[in-house]
């Protein structure tokens, strides 16, 4: 087992890793920027090294500062958390070259997963369904129509050279294709100097479903069920749950089997998340692999009983899954997570500042992952996450009822928070019925504006 683990991160995830290390009896090193001098992860690590000024690029993203800190403290492993350097293949390589174990996939696997096209091909080979598309540039509207006929409408035309909504056209039926194709081409030419277009299946109201995976360095892969993260705003998740109300046990079994095979083929090691979109008929399509531990991992931990962060460390130390897990994955009950952010509920602008009142809910079925504390400061330089509030119940209704109770009993004063927004979402009949898709929040906010 490792002699000492350095955590190359901050906030609640740094504390989460410290928890796992304490339970494994491994001493820890915290690194911190000047803005995080009084942070809880600094307080609870066995040692701490200041690595730079507040700016992330000069502290938490600074390779030499972090590697130096590991060398000075004799740490033999680095846990990168999420965000920051967690999916940086170069950083993983530098760790390797410095004789430090990076707690995550090997650099070439991280790199492969980062190239979307390669990841898609790898998944497709193993029978994992991917979003159907033209695969390459379309020669003309005729070819577009043929491809679309094969996939099924609606489809979306996209500019090969760009993004941001320009050079994009949704086409709902064959008769629209000619016009849409030339319009999209003109826009693409104007915006990106290239008229090249490709085509993809368009899902009008997709659900975001992701599967948690864990692989050891001996070729064994396990899948820990799925999470649904459809409640998001501009691709920032606000509420996650496990399992998904839309995934049947049969679908779960099928996808898990394909993923085990696919990840074994690419030589995946350590924890990861495989993201899918689900269309209105309940079919799943692969989008991408996130080669790291994710923010919302607690909901999976609560329904499976697994300690994913501890498992990451054990896998990195060479242990086999059969030694780490005590049996096949079983899903029990339902879990929900609310990401409580320091933000103004009306303008949605971040609301950094000093927390003057803090009382965390607890009791049965409630878990709070946070690095915030009374008189602590949420600095303006990093994300605005104050706490992750997670509940577990015997079924979805109980998990929701516990979340409502916990949100009510969570006191955070001194900064504005998203708690009122979470309460509104949880009260919505569509949410309660499990009728979710990634446009849920847009609709809720539009309805709120109309009502005002």
């Amino acid at each position: 087992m490792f002699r000492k683990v350095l955590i190359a991160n901050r906030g609640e995830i740094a504390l989460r890793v410290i928890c796992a290390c304490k339970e494994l009896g491994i001493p820890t090193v915290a690194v911190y920027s000047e803005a995080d001098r009084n942070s809880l992860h600094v307080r609870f690590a066995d040692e701490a090294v200041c690595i730079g000024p507040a700016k992330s690029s000069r502290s938490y993203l600074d390779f030499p500062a972090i590697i130096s800190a590991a060398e000075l403290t004799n740490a033999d492993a680095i846990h990168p958390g999420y965000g920051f350097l967690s999916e940086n293949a170069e950083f993983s390589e530098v760790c390797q070259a410095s004789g430090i174990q990076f707690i995550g996939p090997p650099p070439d696997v991280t790199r492969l997963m980062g190239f979307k096209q390669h990841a898609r091909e790898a998944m497709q080979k193993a029978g994992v369904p991917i979003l159907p598309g033209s695969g390459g540039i379309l020669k003309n509207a005729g070819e577009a129509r043929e491809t679309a006929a094969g996939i099924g409408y609606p489809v979306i035309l996209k500019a090969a050279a760009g993004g941001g909504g320009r050079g994009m056209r949704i086409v709902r039926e064959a008769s629209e294709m000619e016009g849409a194709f030339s319009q999209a081409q003109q826009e693409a030419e104007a915006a990106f100097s290239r008229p090249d277009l490709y085509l993809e299946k368009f899902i009008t109201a997709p659900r975001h479903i992701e599967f948690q995976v864990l692989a050891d360095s001996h070729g064994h892969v396990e899948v820990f069920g799925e999470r649904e993260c459809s409640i998001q705003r501009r691709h920032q998740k606000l509420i996650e749950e496990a399992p998904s109300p839309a995934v049947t046990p049969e679908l779960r079994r099928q996808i898990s089997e394909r993923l085990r095979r696919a990840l074994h083929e690419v030589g995946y090691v350590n924890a990861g998340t495989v993201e899918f979109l689900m269309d209105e008929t309940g079919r799943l399509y692969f989008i991408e692999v996130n080669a790291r531990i994710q923010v919302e991992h607690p909901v999976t931990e609560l329904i499976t009983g697994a300690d994913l962060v501890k498992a990451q460390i054990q896998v990195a130390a060479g242990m086999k899954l059969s030694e780490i897990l005590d049996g096949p994955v079983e899903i029990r009950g339902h879990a929900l997570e609310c990401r409580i952010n320091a933000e103004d509920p009306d303008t949605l602008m971040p609301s950094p500042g000093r927390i003057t009142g803090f009382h965390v809910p607890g009791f049965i079925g409630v878990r709070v992952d946070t690095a915030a504390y009374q008189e602590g400061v949420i600095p303006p330089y990093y994300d605005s996450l104050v706490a992750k509030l997670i509940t577990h119940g015997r079924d979805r209704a109980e998990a929701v009822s516990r979340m409502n109770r916990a949100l009510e009993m969570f006191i955070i004063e001194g900064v504005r928070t998203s708690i009122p927004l979470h309460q509104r979402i949880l009260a919505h009949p569509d949410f309660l019925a499990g009728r979710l898709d990634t446009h849920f929040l847009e609709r809720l906010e539009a309805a709120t504006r109309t009502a005002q």
Partner: protein
Amino acid sequence: MDLKEIKELVQVVIDSGVAELEVTRGDSKVRIRRQAEAPRQEIVIPAQPFAVAGQPAAAPAPNPGPPAAPAQSPEAEKPRQEENLHFVKSPIVGTFYEAPAPDAEPFVQVGDHISPGQVLCIIESMKLMNEIEAEVSGTIVARLVENGKPVEYGQALFSVRPD
């Protein structure tokens, strides 16, 4: 390991000035850590109506504590009571060396006059030797880090009385 051996190890820690010692023999393991010398920073919270001593929610703000391995924090070295002392701070994480080579003369000594651009010391980071230059004109009042000791970002290396 018996009590006598443990007492001997404790004496070794005290005598040698080592910060932390861990000894493993067979199944037994002993870790002895020297109590940090810098004062604990405590922020006093005004009494709350329902506060009960020992409850985490009402506890004082955590003390980040001086790091156990890297050298003492600036607070542990009480600077002289002079005003307007300029502190040369480390811009990187690394190991402090007072001289260009192990057997060479130190770059600067206490009492030396320094000018902007003059090399004061080397901080080694990942096998690269970084020369740290003075930014002010003045006189070295004190060297605040021992030769060969680790330093963190922002740690005070020298105190200087500016001209």
